[in-house]
């Protein structure tokens, strides 16, 4: 009997999700009436009987009816116990009534789990993602013999977890159980493209005609689903809808969400010198709910640092935190807020590199043109954390650029190829280059040299502007280099006399930092790899031997020293910047001799990184927030990825805006349980009602038998 029960469980009962599976063992009690009947057959009394002929006559006449009645009563009693046992086990699912009565064609289920970061939101003690997994499990429970499954993860990039449709429901369940949510957003168009590909492949391979059902288990977060309105998504949905039906199985919050995210942490001063105060601006944003305060803790290299309780006023609040670090080298700074609806955006980690001093290399295109620049770095001739090395351009090749935080090219018109490559590699690894020109500029050679160093659509050198009276026009002081001059009219920025300059046309990959009053730019900036460049169309140095007319009075104007320092601050090497990214962005590691290396992600999984076209190793698989380690032999480089707080917004996409072919009415999955309270079918009530009916019927039948026998 127990084996029979196990067989039943494995076949029919296992198709149904039960709230209280152990209660199914009470099904054994259904056999009790039959057992009692069998036992009673072995226990009877004996007696002599004279009127045997009448007894036999009665038996022959009524034996069949009596046997039927007896079995009927036994079956009813067994059924009664079985129904009560089923009711106690609390079944949570009932096949669609249409599917009970009619055999439907086999279905290819394309299950799409929303694995975006918003699915980290907690829903009744479990994350939305876990709830989505359960829903997917229940859809598999609903499936019938002959159905096939594919499994996808909606993330950025989206993933196909099971591409070839499989009949093995257990395999799919296992895949669902093991899949991890990503900390990225979701790329809906790519997801639909993948689904389309799998569906086409499935149709090509499968001989049997199947209905395709695409089922999204999602929270319908607007950050992901707003993209459904894009032409590409609309086109793909329309194409899929010709062969498939769409269904949204939504997981949503019952309770009010309450979420505050750490959206940014910015260093106030990028120099990061030892014994100087390190100030950090932390930005918190209220994503949902009515939080009034959050406690913020700082961990420095894993050790507890300063703490603060930050009042949340308005939507976004910025808070300054001072760090006290006295050790040169790399440090991991981790910020933590109290856990709330979405825990993953309550953490933010990054690295900083603390230096004992800054080292600047000045390469002189002509002798002594860098002297004034050197003076600008240390005007008081005091003990300064800035160490300046000034060398002629011909000694460039002898320099080890990685020892310097920034390289200034003073009045340089041309570079050798090898020198250009050295600068390009230096910037790619995070170094900063500031290039100035002067009256002796050779435009064709300059253009050629520039393109060796900086790739992309950056600057086009047009020629020297005609002599005239020009002034700087800082505009809105938007660029960080200029922000220090905002509200400082005595700095001389707007009064600096300028007579000539190199006219440059900026491309898409260049930013104009500072313009002149004729509308042309005079300082431009951009990025190469992890480094930054600044190009100045004026000389920031002065040669004594030149007989040419001066291009400007910048070097003697009050603006010179501060603008040189601000430029250095912006451009200098940020070893930490390249290793703190938003999830989804590539991580760049230093250029190594090796062609490949191994990256260990926050989950401890290893990935091989191969050097591509770029000089440095780039890892573009940052799908989880946390620390990534590049391991080369015994050496190790650390990098951090943080979630994009914008992706953790909890606004629900308006389903009215979904294409009409995407159903949310649950026509073929209306029994999917979204929460305990709203959609679960009270099947146990029907079972108890059936038990009561059986009880009445059994009582009536027994009474009828007794009455007729007495």
């Amino acid at each position, binding site marked *: 009997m127990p084996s029979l029960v196990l067989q039943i469980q494995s076949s029919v009962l296992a198709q149904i999700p039960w709230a209280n599976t152990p209660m199914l063992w009470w099904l054994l009690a259904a056999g009790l009436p039959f057992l009692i009947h069998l036992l009673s057959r072995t226990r*009877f*009394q004996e007696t002599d*009987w004279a*009127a*045997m002929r009448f*007894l*036999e006559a*009665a038996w022959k006449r009524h034996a069949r009816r009596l046997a039927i009645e007896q079995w009927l009563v036994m079956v009813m009693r067994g059924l009664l116990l079985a129904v009560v046992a089923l009711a106690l086990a609390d079944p949570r699912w009932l096949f669609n009534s249409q599917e009970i009565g009619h055999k439907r064609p086999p279905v290819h289920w394309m299950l799409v789990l929303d694995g975006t970061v918003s699915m980290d939101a907690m829903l009744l003690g479990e994350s939305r993602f876990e709830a989505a997994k359960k829903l997917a499990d229940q859809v598999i429970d609903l499936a019938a013999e002959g159905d096939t499954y594919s499994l996808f993860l909606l993330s950025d990039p989206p993933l196909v977890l099971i591409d070839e449709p499989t009949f093995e429901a257990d395999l799919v369940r296992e895949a669902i159980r093991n899949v991890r949510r990503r900390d990225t957003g979701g790329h809906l168009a790519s997801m639909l493209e993948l689904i389309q590909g799998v569906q086409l492949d499935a149709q090509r391979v499968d001989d049997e005609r199947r209905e395709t059902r695409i089922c999204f288990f999602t929270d319908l977060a607007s950050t992901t689903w707003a993209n459904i309105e894009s032409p590409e998504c609309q086109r793909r949905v329309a194409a899929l809808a010709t062969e498939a039906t769409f269904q949204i199985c939504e997981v949503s919050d019952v309770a009010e969400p309450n979420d505050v995210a750490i959206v940014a942490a910015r260093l106030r001063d990028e120099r990061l010198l030892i014994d100087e105060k390190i100030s950090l601006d932390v930005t918190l944003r209220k994503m949902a709910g009515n939080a009034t305060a959050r406690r913020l803790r700082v961990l420095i290299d894993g050790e507890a640092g300063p703490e603060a309780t930050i009042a949340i006023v308005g939507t976004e609040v910025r808070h300054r935190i001072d760090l006290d670090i006295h050790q040169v080298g790399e440090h991991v700074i981790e910020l933590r807020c109290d856990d709330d609806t979405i825990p993953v955006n309550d953490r933010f980690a990054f690295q900083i590199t603390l230096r004992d001093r800054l080292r600047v290399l000045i390469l002189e295109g002509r002798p002594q043109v860098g002297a004034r620049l050197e003076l600008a770095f240390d005007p008081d001739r005091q003990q300064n954390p800035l160490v300046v090395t000034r060398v002629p351009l011909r000694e460039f090749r002898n320099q080890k650029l990685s020892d310097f935080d920034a390289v200034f090219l003073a009045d340089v018109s041309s570079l050798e190829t090898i020198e250009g490559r050295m600068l390009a590699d230096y910037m790619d690894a995070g170094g900063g280059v500031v290039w100035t020109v002067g009256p002796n500029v050779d435009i064709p050679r300059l253009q050629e040299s520039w393109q060796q160093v900086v790739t992309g659509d950056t600057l086009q050198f047009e020629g020297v502007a005609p002599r005239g009276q020009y002034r700087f026009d800082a505009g809105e002081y938007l660029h960080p280099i200029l922000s220090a001059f905002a509200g400082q009219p005595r700095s001389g920025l707007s009064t600096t006399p300028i007579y000539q300059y190199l006219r440059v046309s900026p491309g898409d990959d260049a930013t104009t930092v500072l313009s002149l009053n004729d509308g042309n730019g005079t300082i431009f900036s951009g990025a190469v790899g992890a480094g930054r460049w600044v190009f100045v169309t004026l000389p920031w140095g002065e040669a004594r031997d030149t007989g040419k007319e001066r291009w400007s009075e910048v070097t003697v104007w009050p603006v010179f020293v501060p603008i040189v320092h601000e430029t250095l601050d912006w451009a200098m090497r940020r070893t930490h910047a390249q290793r703190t990214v938003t999830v989804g962005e590539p991580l760049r590691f230093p250029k190594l001799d090796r062609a490949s290396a191994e990256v260990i992600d926050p989950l401890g999984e290893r990935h091989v990184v191969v050097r591509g076209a770029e000089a440095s190793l780039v890892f573009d698989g940052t799908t989880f927030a946390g620390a990534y380690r590049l391991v080369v032999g015994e050496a190790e480089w650390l990098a951090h990825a943080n979630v994009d707080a914008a992706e953790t917004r909890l606004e629900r996409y308006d389903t009215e805006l979904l294409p009409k072919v995407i159903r949310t009415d649950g026509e073929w999955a209306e029994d999917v349980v979204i929460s305990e309270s709203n959609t679960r079918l009270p099947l146990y009530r029907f079972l108890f009602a059936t038990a009561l009916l059986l009880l009445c019927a059994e009582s009536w039948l027994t009474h009828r038998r007794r009455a*007729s026998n007495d």
Partner: protein
Amino acid sequence: MERAPTSFDPRVLAKLDGLRLRARHIAEGYLVGAHRNPRAGFSTEFAEHREYVPGDDLRYLDWKVFGRSDKFYLKRFEDETNLLCYLAVDSSESMAFQGPNSGMSKWEYAQCMTAALTWVVLRQQDAVGMLRFDDRVRHWIEATNRSLVLEQVLDALEQPSPTTKGLVGRAINEIARRIERRGVVIIISDFFDDIDEIRSGLRRLRHRHCEVVLFQLLDPAELDFPFDVPTRFRGLEGLGTLRVNPVSLRAAYRQEMNQFTQQLDACCRELSVEYLLVRTDEPFDQTLRRFLVRRRDA
């Protein structure tokens, strides 16, 4: 409400040891009670002379009495005035049945009935004989009014308990064939036999101008079928076994039994045979009274 047991109750009588004692107790006890009701005798025709009424055959007038008393009396002959009574008792195996709530078996009840009736008939100076049968007549005691016959009857009744198969119909036929003088034939049996066979025998008896009385003795269990637990019934007279749930079969069995007794009753009515259904838990005095009152009213 259950009746308080009297000294005629079978359960009480069963405690008396010996058939003689039981029969005497019944007969004497009954006769003592009968004095209170003189009309409740065995025969209302017990008289040697009776007054003449117009229409009587004048050949039977007793002229001597007329000469002495100047009254007309009819003279009755000895043979004609004495009652001849044959008591035929079924001694087949089925008569040995005794239900769970009965004081005695059907055979024991029949023994007592037979002995008591013999006693009563003899006390009224009538002739009585006895037949014991199963599938055929086994014992035959010719009717006589001598008191010796009582001992013979008792001896015959005290023969070992019945173990043979009963064929009542055939036995009645044999009785009808063998009986020489007409009289009253009282057959005491459960009559578990084919009704047509019984009818045939009774018709034959009636054809011999015998007055026939049937006492059908049935155990209360045979009528009520009071069993409540699954039971295996072993059929007497080699009728096999049957395992049934009595509760579910009770109504059907009762119906079969009722149908049989009704058929027997109808058969008796058809042949002008007196029929009495006697439960073996019925006190003997009641049974005798029921019988004698019906005879008086007939």
